[in-house]
């Protein structure tokens, strides 16, 4: 199967970026070095091409009802221009994907009521899911897979707003988890005060054909998926398909530590399972940990306690900020408290680790 490419593919190739396959897309892995890019975002500002993320537009009088059927949070809380982190669950309450839902503001380049952003490679599946449920409940709503029509960039770091201030009108007036229209380099954009790094910053959505104009107007460190991963892991943010996966590692939002996105007053698929007695107190849950011994935990490594296997690492890396190995993994409730001693089995050797609540920076 050939990989999908972002609108900036030719620019990335010309820049000499190393590329990687991710979620069915060929994307930049690193432009300079992961450490350089990571430090730019923690210390000043960096830009990411995140056009591999999915964009689905939902329109029609019943758009809100449809969103509340299929996402765990309550979109009725959203005024035009608000954004919301949410989960998409199946009837068992298992997370299929996590997403950000934007209720589009007046003057947005799109007439849709909602735009939501599932992870890379989930666009076809979610478009089908939304269309199927529109029919099932006889709702007056339409869903459009707009992924190929959008370019998406993230501008992240403590100096992100200052940088954007030179390119568009008052980006700082768009508050956290809000979205507003802004013109950048002559391009109509949606500017959302959201991100995946733990830093202040924005994500920009615009016509895919205009990607080069927006990208080149942003004078700052270009960053690849390598730094995006180390930054999100330091922040303790989940990676779909790795920290939860409907097939390989099915988890509820409560197990995955995102129970705060579940509103059981809305009639979403999975509500019954997530309202059942005990659902909010799962037997296992995702914890952060830091290694005390030399070595690096990686996805799939076994977690042990007192010599017995108790879980597995879902994400692990060397934290560029701390210089320590960090990770996420599922452990039984009794081992989830901060400070609990764990072992991580790295190539046959058990490395000492301790449960710690992110962020790791």
């Amino acid at each position, binding site marked *: 199967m050939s990989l999908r490419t972002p609108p900036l593919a030719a620019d990335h190739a010309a820049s*000499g970026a*190393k590329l990687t396959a991710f979620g069915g897309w060929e994307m930049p*892995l*690193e432009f300079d*070095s*992961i*450490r350089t890019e990571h430090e730019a975002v923690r210390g000043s500002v960096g830009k990411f091409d995140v056009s591999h993320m999915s964009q689905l537009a939902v329109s029609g009088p019943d758009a809100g009802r449809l969103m509340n059927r299929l996402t765990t949070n309550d979109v009725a809380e959203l005024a035009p221009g608000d954004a919301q982190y949410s989960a998409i669950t199946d009837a068992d309450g298992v997370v299929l994907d996590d997403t950000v839902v934007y209720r589009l503001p007046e003057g947005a380049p799109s007439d849709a009521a909602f735009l939501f952003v599932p992870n890379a490679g989930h666009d076809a599946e979610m478009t089908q899911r939304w269309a199927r449920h529109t029919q099932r409940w006889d709702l007056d709503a339409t869903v459009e897979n707009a992924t190929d029509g959008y370019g998406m960039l993230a501008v992240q770091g403590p100096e992100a707003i200052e940088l954007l201030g030179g390119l568009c009108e008052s980006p700082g007036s768009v508050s956290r988890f809000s979205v507003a229209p802004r013109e950048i380099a002559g391009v109509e954009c949606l500017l959302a005060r959201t991100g995946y790094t733990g830093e202040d910053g924005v994500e920009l959505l615009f016509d895919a054909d205009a990607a080069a104009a927006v990208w080149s107007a942003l004078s700052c460190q270009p960053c690849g998926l*390598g730094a995006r*991963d*180390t930054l999100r892991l330091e922040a303790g943010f989940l990676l779909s398909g790795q920290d939860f996966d409907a097939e390989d590692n099915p988890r509820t939002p409560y197990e995955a530590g995102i129970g705060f996105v579940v509103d059981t007053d809305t009639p979403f698929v999975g509500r019954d399972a997530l309202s059942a007695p005990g659902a909010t107190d799962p037997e296992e849950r995702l914890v952060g940990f830091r290694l005390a011994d*030399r*070595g*690096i935990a*990686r996805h799939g490594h076994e977690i042990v306690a007192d010599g017995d296997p108790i879980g597995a690492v879902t994400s692990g*890396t*060397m934290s*560029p900020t701390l210089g320590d190995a960090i990770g996420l993994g599922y452990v039984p409730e009794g081992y989830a408290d901060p400070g609990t001693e764990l072992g991580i089995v790295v*190539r046959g050797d058990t490395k000492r680790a301790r449960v710690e609540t992110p962020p790791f920076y």
Partner: protein
Amino acid sequence: MSFDVPEDCRYRETHEWARHESGTVRVGITDFAQDELGDVVFVELPAVGDALESGAEFGVIESIKAVSDLYAPVSGDLTAVNDDLIDAPELVNEDPFGDGWMLEIDPADPAEFEALLSPSAYDDQTA
């Protein structure tokens, strides 16, 4: 992009270099390899006195994004290990043929060194 391929080294196709150094053979990974790996953050090496076998794994190198095995270019007993890499694994990125060296081996069979790739043969492989 072109990478350093010093003339005084021989190479394995798995991107280790070997160089004669006052009776021993010094070993590290190539400029190409460190660039492929990116930021090196951890190097796991054997202990002085261990016997290495040509072509066998002797350690592991990890960058932020990847884990890679290391293979011995020649057989022999380990006479030195670069302990600086414990606290400064980034030396492998900064100076792969110099301060980023990994091991010194007392070679058991001189013919093994001669059988390694020449600089031009290795250069062709990575071109």
